[in-house]
């Protein structure tokens, strides 16, 4: 009982300490944090309360027996106008927020679940296993991420029915190498720390050490990377949608797909079908980026001092921009 209470106390102290920098954030970092949180929150709320907030369903084309006009200008009944399918642009944006966040949430979860343990084990045990995994991950890294996502989405599209799942998996595969690399490199530096050495000397089992000492130390980095990756993931998802892969139009509203359909509208001077979903993408990604960068500056003085991440020997230096976490 006592130990549990101590552990709980230790944990709350830990959380408070972790949150302290946010409260202490000053100046630009603070503004970025607040604006980023605000923007992200808006989209999260849109997603959660889509059924209430959205004027119509994402594929609704009539109301009260009256069919909506095709490609109608923005007006008071359709604030952002209507599409070629007579659906309401605003409603598709609101429901689209749900699709985007669902996919990105899933992709992040998958990415973390696969990438973090792999990085922990590979970094801690080292040896041939480590070298092999690093080589494999580097090979994956050599693909332009979008290219990899396209090929994966294309491949899974035939066999997996849920477009959300297809898109999430395609994005996951492009981000696993990043989580892997960040975690692994951090583990390598932590591995030789005195307290880990001490635990090892006391006869702790490797997995206990990993779980108790290494994991918590390393996992601090993850929220920042995850937030920045979420921003990237939205961009990848919308790019997939734009090219016609990933979430299929009958399964949900997706901004990238809407922009792709709007390309032919734009050539005819119809601007509202493309502009609004496009702006939604820009705002959500901006929000997530601001949040990530704000967190990065406040939470993580280690990263702040880091120079450009030099990659360990042998690996091609293909750090994505989100890893060059600099204020």
């Amino acid at each position, binding site marked *: 009982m006592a130990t549990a209470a101590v552990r709980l106390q230790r944990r709350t102290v830990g959380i408070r300490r972790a949150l302290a920098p946010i409260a202490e954030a000053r100046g630009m970092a603070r503004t970025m944090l607040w604006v980023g949180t605000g923007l992200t929150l808006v989209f999260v709320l849109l997603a959660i309360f889509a059924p209430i907030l959205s004027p119509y369903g994402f594929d609704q084309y009539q109301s009260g027996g009256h069919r909506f006009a095709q490609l109608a200008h923005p007006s008071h009944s359709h604030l952002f106008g209507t599409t*070629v*399918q007579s659906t309401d642009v605003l409603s598709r944006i609101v429901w689209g927020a749900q699709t985007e966040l669902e996919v990105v949430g899933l992709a992040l979860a998958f990415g973390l679940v696969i990438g973090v343990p792999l990085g922990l084990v590979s970094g801690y045990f080292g040896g041939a296993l480590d070298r092999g995994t690093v080589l494999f991950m580097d090979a994956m890294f050599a693909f332009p991420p979008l290219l990899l996502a396209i090929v994966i989405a294309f491949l899974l599209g035939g066999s997996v029915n849920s477009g959300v799942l297809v898109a999430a998996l395609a994005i996951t595969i492009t981000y696993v190498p990043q989580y892997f690399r960040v975690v692994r490199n951090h583990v390598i530096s932590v591995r030789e720390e005195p307290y880990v050495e001490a635990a090892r000397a006391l006869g702790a089992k490797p997995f206990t050490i990993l779980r108790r000492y290494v994991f918590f130390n390393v996992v601090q980095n993850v929220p920042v990377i995850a937030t920045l990756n979420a921003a990237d993931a939205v961009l990848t998802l919308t790019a997939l949608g734009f090219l016609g892969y990933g979430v*299929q139009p*009958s399964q949900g509203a997706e901004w990238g797909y809407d922009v792709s359909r709007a390309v*032919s509208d734009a*050539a*005819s001077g*119809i601007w509202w079908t493309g502009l609004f979903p496009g702006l939604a993408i820009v705002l959500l990604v901006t929000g997530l980026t601001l949040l990530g960068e704000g967190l990065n500056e406040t939470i993580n003085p280690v990263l702040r001092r880091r120079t450009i991440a030099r990659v360990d020997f042998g690996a091609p230096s293909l750090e994505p921009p989100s890893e060059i976490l600099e204020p």
Partner: protein
Amino acid sequence: MHVRPRLRHLAVLGLAGLALAVVGVTAAQSKPLHSTASTIIDGTTDTVTNVDPAGNYDYGSATVDLLVYQHLLDYPEGHRSPTPSLATGCTANAAQTAWTCTLKKGVKFSNGDPFTSADVKWSFDRVNAIKDPSGIYGLISNLKDVTTNGDYSVTFNLKTPQSTWPFILTTGAATIVDHKVYPADKIVANTDTKNLVGTGPYVLSKFTPGQQAVFTPNPNYDGSLGSVKNGGVIINYYSKSSTMKLALQQGTIDMAFRDFTPTEYAALGKTSGITVFKGSGVVIRYLVLNVKRPPTNNLAVRKAIAYLFPRQDIASRIYHGNVQPLYSMVPAGLPGHVNAFGELYGLAPSTAKAKAVLKAAHVKTPVKLTVWWTPSHYGDASADEYTEIQRALNASKLFKVTLKSAEWATYSKTLGTQYGAFQLGWFPDYVDAEDYLVPFYASGSNFTSNGYKSAKMDALLHQEQGAKSTAQRLSIVQQAQMIAAKDAPIIPYWQGAMLAVGRSDIHGIQGTLDPTYLMRFWEITKS
């Protein structure tokens, strides 16, 4: 501060690398255009697989071939049936198992080689020898062999009697090439333009895959398809119709043929200085119903779908009148067409009749139905078309439709082997009712894998192929359409117009828009 000179070294190294990367690339064969002012610049979203006629079975390549090659029989402007071109005429024996054609004398290929019966035999033999993966050789699968009788007569010996052989002679598989230039068992590469010689109106003078094909008038062309009325043709290839539309509006291209989205056609129709030309078309779209899989294995369900099908809404709402509702697999305007579905199920959808037919068969409603469609192959509007179908069927409360889509490569491999109801389109190999019936309803050649097999239908179609007179043939064709509508394994729903768009200084487009679906560029002029 040692950084600077080193940076400079690096810059020099980088530039040298760039230069190395680009040097040593051979220049493509190119002859300059004679007159750029009278050159017609066309835009298209079609693609070209192989220019060599033995290696293509797609519309984009066929359009290029039309400019470069001829057949024994062709369709010059104003002709709707096979007309002597390189042949002076073709006749069949009594059994219709051998067709003999006499050839025109004095015709030369663009490189100066004379045209003789050896070229005809060579052309057919190499199509069968190459057996290109495009499958073009399938068109002449009924051909046993070709025999020459002197320089100016050839006989086609067939495996089974075929009254429509002259139509086959107008297809890509029957294109005539020069036997001195084309290898017997290999396709000539697209960029090897000096070896892509034919007898047609133009010479392909430059080909950049995926970007551009440049045609200059063929000095040796004998004018049998009509004289060349412009200084040359450039076909510019686009992957998105929206960029092609902007290019047309900006005057980068003079005309565009195939294909814009319905929204774009509508907008172009309202643009000043641009005209959308419309001719009757032969492209059709249809929904295949699997007669082996539930729920469409139940005839009542198929009939209910036929009663509910929103043909008018699709034609007006989705395609803005650029397609017309179709009530038979054989398009309206073709000899032998009957409004089969219209007669049996009515021209307008009827929920009451659909309900009655389901009730009579004791089918529990709503019927759950998964409908498959493919996003890119049949144009962007497919998404809207199938949304419309889903809405119509669901609105009747008799069906609960789920839409599913798959990328074309996967989709085209699967079809009836796994899908219960699915979208397809058809572009005929030759414009005759036969080509709208045999590939779909004859159990031996049904490519949709929807499991349809009817002894009565098979017997009719067999009779049709060996029919002695056109009247007899057309009467069989009409009977077959009625059976097809009654069994409803396929629901045809629209027939497209042939659309081309031109700027105001381009003339002669309208004349070439007829059911043969050929863009005769040589008839087009620029003022």
